[in-house]
């Protein structure tokens, strides 16, 4: 009796191991097709095949947008608890293009460190969080960069009474910087190139960085110039701080998407281009209805969806660009609303002007 039981158990055990091994290996080698479907069902919102993102967004009924929550002017939460800012408006523009309703967005506040993981894993559909376009990020992180919406450069802010005028004066200084940013790397590069000895003090969030700077932990603080301007306005005494007249790097900031879904990448690209085109054509949220009703210009007609079925080529409705301009506005409107002369920041347009005004904003033709 006992012998038979053991035989039986032996066979059963072998079978069990075999089964377990199969469930492990069969997926990797013998049946890739089956695996694909399994994976897709498990993480449907992280899938990255052609057209999957738009489909998922439409089924969900709203867009999930990764933004900054600590950078006034670009992405922040206002007194009423609403997300506001330049980047946030681009999230609204994408929602307007897809749904014809700019409010169909859910915002996910992310730190610099969290942002790429959130995008890679499909937690968000698009990342619009003052993110610098670099070769490494474009390739190794599995991400694609849409056209730059804001040309920025890295700057350094110091106390006025410190007497620091140039980078060379920062010999031996402590410099506060946020982790997970290109600024951290640029700082190291620039200081090494000039042979300046300094000590970085690294924090996770912008609030911590500027908090420590304000407490006097650091002689200087570094990040993108636009962010320095915006952050300076939140310090106790903005007039005590001065931004040095040096630019450490090029910082082209723009939206980011996952690699693998070219249709979604196209949509984000052309939403950005649509805001450029709107400004170039002089179409604003105020006059868009009037122009749509009266125009004879074929280019404007294509842009506003009256001919050419441009929207359908993107997988959207033909009035996609009309919706962006109508509900969110063209580039100039978005810029002025968040960063322009009527705001505390009053950032000059500089490089961020339309190409017809000598800036870098240039959209390919919509045809």
């Amino acid at each position, binding site marked *: 009796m006992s012998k038979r039981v053991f035989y039986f158990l032996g066979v059963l055990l072998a079978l069990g191991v075999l089964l*377990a091994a199969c469930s492990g290996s069969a997926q990797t080698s013998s049946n890739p097709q089956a695996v694909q479907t399994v994976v897709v069902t498990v993480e449907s919102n992280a899938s990255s095949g052609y057209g999957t993102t738009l489909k998922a967004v439409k089924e969900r009924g709203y867009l999930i947008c990764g933004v900054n929550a600590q950078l006034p002017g670009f992405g922040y939460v206002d007194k009423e608890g609403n997300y506001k800012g330049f980047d946030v408006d681009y999230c609204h523009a994408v929602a307007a293009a897809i749904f014809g309703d700019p409010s169909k967005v859910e915002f996910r506040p992310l730190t610099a460190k969290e942002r790429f993981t959130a995008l890679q894993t499909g937690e968000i559909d698009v990342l619009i969080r003052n993110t610098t376009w670099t070769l490494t990020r474009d390739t190794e992180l599995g991400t694609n960069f849409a056209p730059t919406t804001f040309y920025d450069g890295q700057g350094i802010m110091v106390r006025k009474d410190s007497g620091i005028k140039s980078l060379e004066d920062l010999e031996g200084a402590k410099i506060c910087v946020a982790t997970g940013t290109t600024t951290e790397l640029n700082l190291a*590069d620039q200081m090494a190139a000039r042979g300046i000895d300094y000590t970085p003090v690294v924090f996770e969030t912008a609030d911590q960085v500027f908090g420590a700077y304000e407490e006097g932990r650091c002689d200087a603080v570094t990040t993108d110039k636009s962010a320095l301007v915006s952050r300076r306005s939140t310090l106790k005494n903005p007039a005590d701080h001065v931004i040095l007249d040096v630019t450490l790097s090029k910082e082209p900031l723009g939206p980011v998407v996952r690699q693998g879904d070219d249709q979604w990448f196209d949509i984000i690209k052309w939403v950005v281009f649509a805001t450029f085109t709107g400004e170039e054509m002089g179409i604003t949220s105020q006059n868009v209805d009037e122009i749509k009703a009266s125009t004879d210009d074929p280019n404007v007609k294509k842009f506003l969806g009256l001919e050419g079925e441009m929207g359908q080529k993107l997988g959207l409705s033909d009035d996609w660009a009309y919706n962006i301009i109508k509900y969110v506005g063209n580039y100039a409107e978005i810029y002025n609303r968040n960063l322009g002369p009527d705001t505390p920041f009053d950032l000059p347009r500089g490089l961020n002007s339309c190409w017809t005004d000598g800036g870098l904003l240039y959209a390919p033709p919509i045809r």
Partner: protein
Amino acid sequence: MKETTIPFWRDERVLKWIAQIIFLIIVVASGAYLYHNMMTALAQRGLLPSFHFLKLTAGFDIGEHLIPYSRSDTYGRALLVGILNTIEVSFLGIIFATILGIIIGVMRLSQNWLLNKIATVYIEIIRNVPLLVLLVFWYTGVFLQFPRLKEAKILPGPTYVSNRGIAMPWGKPTETWHLYLYVLAFGLLLAAIVWWRLTLIGKRTGRMPLVTVWSTLTFLGVALLGWIGITLIYHQAPLAIDRPELKGLRTVGGLELTPEFLALLSGLVFYTAAFIAEVVRAGIQSVSKGQVEAARALGLNGFQTLRLVVFPQALRVIVPPMTSQYLNLTKNSSLAVFIGFPDLYSVAGTIHNQTGRAVEVTILMMAVYLSFSLMTSVFMNWYNKKIRLVER
């Protein structure tokens, strides 16, 4: 003799085996599935696991490093810098927390009303506040509130106390330092011999000589004579005093302790000491009252009773929970990231972000913390065995 055969589906032994096997299959299959799912997802994004990035240039600077490090070193070395910073703060933290914890634990049992209440209040407050809150308190509430460097408080030395940390004089090895190391090694050897001889004598005569005191004195004697000798012969002491001085935006020379390091160390020490104090109290209370009474009856005074009778017995109860406090302290040091101290977690986080290698960096981090914990456990288990009551 004929056995009554039970069909296998009603045989309890078989059923137990089947249950085990099914459980095994489920565990292995779900593990394999999760692993495969991760690999497929990573492959889709062109991020197949590889540790090649450790050899690439890091490109970022780290504020505090125990070994030479610059931006042109590799990610691997950056990680090592983080690991050493974690070891530094954990090691010092464990030592100080143990000392403070024992003092407070004994105070907690003191007959003195004031001492007793102070210890009680301390323990109850600290144990019931999250460590992160304590760390932020120490950092922004204490160390960053010190005067600015230009108005730094200068203590004799000079020691500069400012919101940039504490800079104090420190020994700096000179050319004769390596020679002095031989002297120290010799002193250590001599002390060991003294220890061994005295223990032997103690066992033979039954009188316990002051083994620890005499061997320590031997070592200190050799160290002092060696110092004087080397200074006289070579006209240079093995260590020169390196004094910090104010230079531009910083202090140069001496030992510099940053506010981040001080805040992290203080937070960890004061937090863990509260738990250690409770462990010590429980250990002491576990020694039966009769032992103390017997010791008193033999004419031992309060301190002797504690040192010779109570502590040796309490230690057996204290050591195992103490081990887990040490492990907690080491793991809690990862909260350093919130106050800007570049420990392992902080550096690994930066590497993760610059390379996008989430899975690899996380695995490395887990492996390092795991080996810290295992090493601490191995040591404490060895010590526990050593002091265990030998039962015959």
